[in-house]
């Protein structure tokens, strides 16, 4: 389980970084999204992976999950979601004004 999660986070981060470095705003935004997924997973597991346990202290139950990372990840998801929505809107406006979705708002001669 630990291996799978860490590989997943690694893969998401690597793909995110690759996409961020691309020259089209669409791929850059996708990259940001993937990076935020990776971060959310990372925050989630920072409370350690516990299977089948409630995020509360229940009398009689020996194990429980750390609930703080779950609250943190909720905040992080909301924030990254809002910011992504804004940058999509802005990128669309820039494309409308310049006619290209290049990050520099102008095509480079090839």
């Amino acid at each position, binding site marked *: 389980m630990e291996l799978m999660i860490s590989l997943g986070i690694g893969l998401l981060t690597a793909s995110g970084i690759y996409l961020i470095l691309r020259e089209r705003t669409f791929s850059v935004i996708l990259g940001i999204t993937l990076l*935020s997924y990776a971060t959310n997973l*990372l925050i989630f*597991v920072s409370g350690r992976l516990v299977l089948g346990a409630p995020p509360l202290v229940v009398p009689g139950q020996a194990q429980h999950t750390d609930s703080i990372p779950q609250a*943190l990840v909720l905040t992080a998801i909301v*924030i990254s979601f809002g910011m992504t929505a804004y940058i999509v809107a802005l*990128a669309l406006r*820039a494309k409308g004004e*310049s006619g290209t979705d290049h990050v520099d*708002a102008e095509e480079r001669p090839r």
Partner: protein
Amino acid sequence: MSHVLLLPILLPLLAAVVCVAGQKRGLAFQRPVSLAATVALPLVAAVLVASAAQGEISSYAMGAWPAPFGIVLVLDRLSAAMVMLTSVLALPALIYSLAGADAKGRSFHALFQFQLAGLNGAFLTGDIFNLFVFFEVLLGASYGLLAHGGGLLRARASITYIVLNLAGSTLFLIALAFIYGTLGTLNIADLARVLPQVPPSDQALVRTAFALLVIVFALKAALLPLSFWLPLAYGAAIAPVAALFAVLTKVGIYALLRISGIVLNSAEFTVSLFDPWLVPVAITTIAVGAIGVLAAPRLSVVVAYLVVVSTGTLLSVITVLDTASTAAVIYYMLHSTLATGGFFLLADAIANQRGDRGDKLERGPHVRDLKVLGSAFLVLAVAVSGMPPLSGFLGKVMLMQAVQSSEWVEAIWPALLVSSLVVGLALARQVSVLFWEPIADEPRPVYPPPSRLRATAVVALVAASPILTLATGSVSAYARAAAEQLVARQGYIDAVLGTTPQIIRERRPR
């Protein structure tokens, strides 16, 4: 401490909500609301400074959840000073925008107030995750403000700025995940308490986490090589927004001061986190900023590079985090924020009288108010370049005295002195281009009607440096006391955690 501690966040937040709700009623409704909140803010800040100046650190537990389980707001001398600085800068910026800049797009006032709420929250919070949230509030507002006014240049600058900051936020979260994963807390005072007990096997991970955090703050403060976004973004923003942004980079420096002063210095293995690299990088930042000041094509870009220079100047001294250097950093921070903020407004006031040439640094038509604008330029140029007799000079002297015994003194002194010289030279050349060599046969542009609002705002911020100079005695005494409080550290920890009974933590599974 009473609920006054909440006001610097609640007041702008409330004003922002009212502005959003009254969107349909237009500017006639939003302007008084926004202005009232921004006028009240320095008064609230004055109450906070007066209370902090007594020397007591007060902590406010939100929802009465005791620290470290709930979020706390902490008021010490440093955070009170930063709230004061923000409100003193915000008022002239807002007054300037009332002359018409706020009508160039929608939601200016709501965004402006959200920005203030985020700034004040970031300065007051005592919780590192809450710091992230307030960073996002102020960044979210700044994304909107930067794009305010429209146009391709701003859209392009915004995209770069937002992508960089989103990447920065991601790094911030990664750092927080590692910090929570290893230390089990996110409360700044509690971090300082837990840090010395980290077992050696976890120390590398903790160091990495804090290094990531430092990178994030360096990005916000525009430290090289993370500073190239700044001239693009600040040069593209409209003047009142750029003036408010002058304090944005200082959030990064404040966070660095806070984290290194309270947390990093509390444990042996994190105390040297900045050691081998921060001074060279800061000095390179000064150099690149100074070259930018020489080479920039427009006056607002020049001022943006001046912000970069001030970041380098401040951070070159932060490695030696003793009382003297921290006090000097606080004083210089107040000075450079107000001076660069005023310079952004002045650049726009000059551009308004140059017709189509705007703030491009090329010979152009006569400016109408030559004497007023020229004198304001002189005052600000003397202040930012660090020439006597104004606050820039006093600030630099304090910085230089503070690093006297540092091993880096041979590098820092020349950097500070040469950057003064270069900035002074560059600004002198720009004066002659802008004011003294008008093209005689060029027809005069259509000057905008004189605006009392603009004039008030510019004069207020230009006067800030002379006023700061006159008040240097009391301001530097306050800065010194603030530095002592930060360096002492234990007072902060006790103020936040003191009332909590012994916290029993279960040992984390390894």
